[in-house]
């Protein structure tokens, strides 16, 4: 069996921006608990209040990871958690008219 000599290159993690699973979960929690779109500064402040401060590069890496999975959207008003589509909305996405 051929051995894989080299591991895959990380897509989101970089030196100095390598959030732990705990940090990612905290970021997701901050987004889910907010009432609407929130800024990165607000997420950093919320994490600090929860006793889990992180750096901005780590937050950016966590958001890039969550965004890559479609779980976060960003717009002019900030960041928002994107829920999984319900059955009714799934039907609209798959069969509905596109604008």
């Amino acid at each position, binding site marked *: 069996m051929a051995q894989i000599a080299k591991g895959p290159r990380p897509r989101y993690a970089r030196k100095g921006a390598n959030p732990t699973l705990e940090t990612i979960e905290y970021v997701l929690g901050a987004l889910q608990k907010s*009432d*609407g*779109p929130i800024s990165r500064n607000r997420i950093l402040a919320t994490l600090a209040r929860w006793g889990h401060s992180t750096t901005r590069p780590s937050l950016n890496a966590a*958001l890039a990871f969550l*965004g*890559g*999975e*479609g*779980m*976060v*959207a*960003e*717009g*002019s*008003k*900030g*960041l*928002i958690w*994107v*829920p*999984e*589509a*319900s*059955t*009714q*909305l*799934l039907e*609209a*996405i*798959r069969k*509905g*008219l*596109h*604008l």
Partner: protein
Amino acid sequence: MGLRARAIVLSAAAAESLLRLERSPDQASGSIARRVRSLRSILLADCLHGEVVKQDRIPKALKDKYGLENLFVEDLPSFWRLLCTIVRDRGERYLVVVGLWIIGHTIVGFQGAAAELGSSPRPLDSVSAALVTLSRRGRGLNSGSWQGWGPTLK
């Protein structure tokens, strides 16, 4: 802003409303439909462009029907509003337009809209009826005085 929506999809109710607006000979209806079409590029560039409806202000009727967890309102001509939500499917974000409505801040605004469109308010389906009921009870989208009505075109 890299984390955008992949596409904008119309729900069955919204597609029906848009079709009716586009088919109507009324000038106001045409301008509403054109504005909806022109919102495509704006919403694809900025999926949070509209006014945010707070979670506790999302009408229960819409929550029950679509399971909404977020709702955005875009202003359209003649006191119409476009209601959309952002959801994900298979790791992709989609903006789903759940409805096109006449929603006036006040009764005067609503009467103006109805007069402009030359028709009387008539709820389209159960969700519209529920919105009308909510607004009559003083519980609208973002404030207590909003009036919600379904599409009024014949």
